[in-house]
């Protein structure tokens, strides 16, 4: 019998998650965009507060052997609710049909929350699939020209789920309940388990846009409407990393050595692929697509470090990159509507909209890893986690990549501040609000990262079970 006081916030959280889903479905029928925006924002804020409360109090409850509410899951529920709040705000103006979008966003959100909460492989595969499907629909409701990116995303997701299903089948004999709780140590090193591990890595790498499983991702990012791209790169991709945490650091914890090697290789190729291809991009949206691929490579450094410190660093960078990329895509979405797309089109943005230019500059400096911004702290933690696990070479390669990335970000910055007479472009309050939140967060948590680091460490330590 659990004490009543500890069950109440958890029940409240589950109720809120269900309520969010219901409000999304209701919006589809009521079709009141403004009311829906207010309601969904309030519910997301409530989810954020309740899950932060549960996180702070360290409540640990298993529900039906499928879900587990513990600091690791509540940390990511809080993170994703902030991201969803920003995307929701952004989509209010830039989505063609906001009520339908709201419904699909509610489904995406439940997918993300299910993955964060899951303690079972079934829940993970279910959450990832529901998320990918509703995002594909989100792309397609905007018009006929969006069929191609939607289909590409759908096919990628379908392949990922098929491979993941096969991987689950392979370990079924060792883990008949498909729970995430560790598989027996006796099976370590057996052919089935190793193959299953690699297949999981491949499937989740496909979801997380990791090279070489990501070749369609830039097309999807570029083709999709900007607000959906923000969702894809800010939330969907990060959910795949959360699933990776759960599968590799709990289920396959006995194979850490192999995991470290696999992620080392994936991380290096992803960083180089993303950064080198980004160098030649002219379309800003595509440039950010490749930039976010390279950032996925940086996040994998923490996985390669395979230590609590590495998990902490990756969790920090997941939050940092989510904020930065949503901010960047907010500007891109807004300018896309005015038909401003290539780096040359961005010329003189500093005169046309000083706020947008300054925010994008700060976001890009943070992506480069310039102190004292949040991206710097994330990268610093990642690099030092690699060195502390004895992977000096990985840290050197990551620093080389950081150096390469300066060039393409600087290209955009230079273009924005070139001297050219131009008329100002008005900016809607949604974009302003998103930018303000993002910029304030990356400066604040760049100068004072302690709370986030402490939280990430706590989340990581509960994931590892101590």
């Amino acid at each position: 019998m659990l004490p009543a006081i500890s069950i109440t916030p958890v029940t409240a959280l589950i109720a809120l998650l269900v309520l969010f889903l219901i409000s999304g479905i209701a919006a589809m029928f009521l079709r009141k965009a403004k009311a829906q925006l207010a309601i969904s924002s309030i519910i997301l804020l409530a989810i954020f507060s309740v899950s932060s409360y549960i996180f702070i109090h360290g409540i640990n409850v298993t529900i039906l052997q499928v879900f587990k509410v513990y600091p690791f899951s509540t940390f990511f529920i809080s993170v994703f609710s902030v991201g969803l709040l920003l995307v929701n705000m952004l989509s209010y103006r830039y989505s063609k049909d906001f009520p339908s979008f709201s419904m699909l966003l509610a489904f995406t959100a439940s997918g993300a929350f299910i993955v964060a909460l899951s303690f079972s492989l079934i829940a993970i595969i279910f959450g990832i699939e529901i998320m990918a499907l509703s995002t594909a629909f989100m792309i397609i409701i905007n018009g006929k020209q969006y069929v191609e990116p939607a289909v590409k995303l759908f096919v990628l997701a379908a392949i990922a789920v098929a491979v993941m299903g096969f991987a689950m089948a392979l370990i079924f004999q060792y883990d008949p309940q498909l729970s995430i709780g560790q598989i027996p140590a006796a099976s370590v090193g057996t052919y089935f388990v190793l193959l299953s591990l690699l297949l999981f890595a491949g499937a989740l790498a496909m979801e997380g846009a990791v090279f070489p499983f990501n070749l369609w991702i830039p097309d999807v990012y570029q083709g999709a409407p900007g607000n959906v791209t923000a969702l894809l790169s800010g939330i969907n991709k990060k959910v795949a990393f959360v699933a990776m945490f759960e599968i590799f650091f709990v289920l396959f914890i006995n194979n850490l050595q192999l995991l470290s090697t696999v992620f080392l290789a994936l991380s290096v190729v992803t960083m180089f692929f993303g950064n080198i291809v980004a160098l030649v991009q002219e379309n800003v949206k595509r440039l950010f697509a490749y930039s976010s691929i390279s950032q996925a490579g940086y996040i994998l450094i923490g996985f390669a470090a395979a230590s609590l410190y590495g998990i902490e660093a990756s969790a920090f960078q997941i939050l940092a990159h989510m904020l930065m990329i949503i901010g960047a895509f907010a500007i891109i979405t807004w300018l896309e509507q005015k038909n401003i797309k290539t780096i040359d089109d961005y010329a003189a943005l500093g005169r046309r909209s000083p706020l947008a230019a300054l925010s994008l500059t700060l976001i890009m400096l943070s992506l480069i890893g310039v102190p004292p911004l949040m991206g710097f702290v994330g990268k610093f933690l990642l690099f030092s986690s690699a060195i502390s696990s004895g992977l000096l070479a990985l840290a050197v390669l990551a620093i080389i990549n950081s150096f390469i990335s300066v060039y393409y970000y600087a290209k955009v910055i230079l273009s924005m501040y070139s001297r050219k007479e131009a008329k100002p472009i008005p900016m809607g309050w949604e974009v302003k609000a998103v930018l303000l939140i993002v910029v304030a967060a990356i400066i604040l948590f760049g100068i004072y990262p302690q709370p986030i680091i402490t939280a990430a460490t706590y989340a990581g330590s509960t994931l590892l079970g101590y």
Partner: protein
Amino acid sequence: MIPIIGAMLLILIIGLVATIALDERHSRAIATAASLVVLVIVISVLFNSLLTGNIVHSEQYAYYLPSLNVAFEMQFTPISFALLLMASIVSLAAIYAGNIEKESPKASSALLLLFEFAAIGLFTSANFLLFFIFWDIGVVVLFFMIYLFGSAGRKRAAIKFLIYEILASSLLLLGILMIYFYTPLHSFDLSYIALNFHLVSQGVQSLIFLILFFAFLINMPVFPVHLWLPDAHTEASTQGSMALSGILTKFGGYGMLLLFATIPIASSFSYYVAILAIISAFYAAFVLMRQHDIKRVVAYTTIVEMSIILIGIASLDSFGTYGAAYGMLAHGFAVAMLFLAAGSVGHLFADRDIREVKGVITTSLSTAYTFLIGTFATTGVPLTAAFIGDILIFSGAQSAFGNIGLLPLGALLITGAFMYFVINKSFLSAKDSSKNVNYIGLSQKVGFGILMLAIIIFGILPFMILKLFT
């Protein structure tokens, strides 16, 4: 103990916010005021320490990265204080007088204040992580300074500057991370590393030394990684050049001083470093003789001077080390003054080519004499601050490397000869003088005055700083 360093940084941030928030007409005045307050604090600390005979002071604030045990720790050491003094004076002169072209005073004042913030933070940081953070802020700010306010070719120059400097800061990051993880009780703390780094194996020490050495070499800059400097100076605005040569190059110099002081293996490299410094000094002096742009000429004197400072640092002798610190102080004033004069010439005649510009003295007496005194100050004429620095550096270099250590004097001679040729040709020749298209204002003259005063005071009364060293 009063948190002086925190107060200075806070004043600069408040000044920065006020500069951005208030009207463009007031921005230069506000920025000047903030910078002046900081200078007054620095000078009062100097006088206080002359009375008490002690400068060492440290402050600690909240933790920055608790998991790595890094806090916001700031400190004065004698050497860092000397550079801090120089940075605050040069910043004041640049903010008040540097904007000759009167181009968007708001943005340029704000950037310069942020740069002063970075410089003061860097010279006072007590651990390598803060050092790195302020270093990067300074580099990014100057990148924008060059790009936003430069002349026609600024885009290329800014990108070149950024690529070189980010390479340096990447190496720096790698180096400090390695230092952290190889120190016995993982630490970024400067004094702790200096005490304990001898416990690290020789191979690792050499690797870390080389990584950091190249990072600082790029920034100083010294041949063969100096290529960003002449372009950056030619294209940057006067303010940008003053901050760049006066302060940013000292980041590398100060880092190099820290490197030689903290890593014991440095002593086995010092001979090679000295040879590199000698080659660099002569190389820059020879290239200097082929330049026509006054700003480019001054830019190459920076390389000559920084090479001489490098030989002082490499000597690992107390004379050489203190001489290098004093030399950096002197060079900061001198080169900022030369760039201010060069910028004034460019503004007066809309041209800086020494073959075209003639007889500056008939148009602007102050500019011509400032350039003359600046030349004295770079070539180490007695009664200027550089003389003290050079004497100390060369006595240190002589005792460490024998007479080879005195070779850079030859490079200094060539530099001086060419500079006097420039003065003779463009500044002092009164016949067929060029027509000026503009005038320079009172604020430039005040700027000349501030820097000239600093050069003379620290040339006549060197004990004010040297007393702190001993």
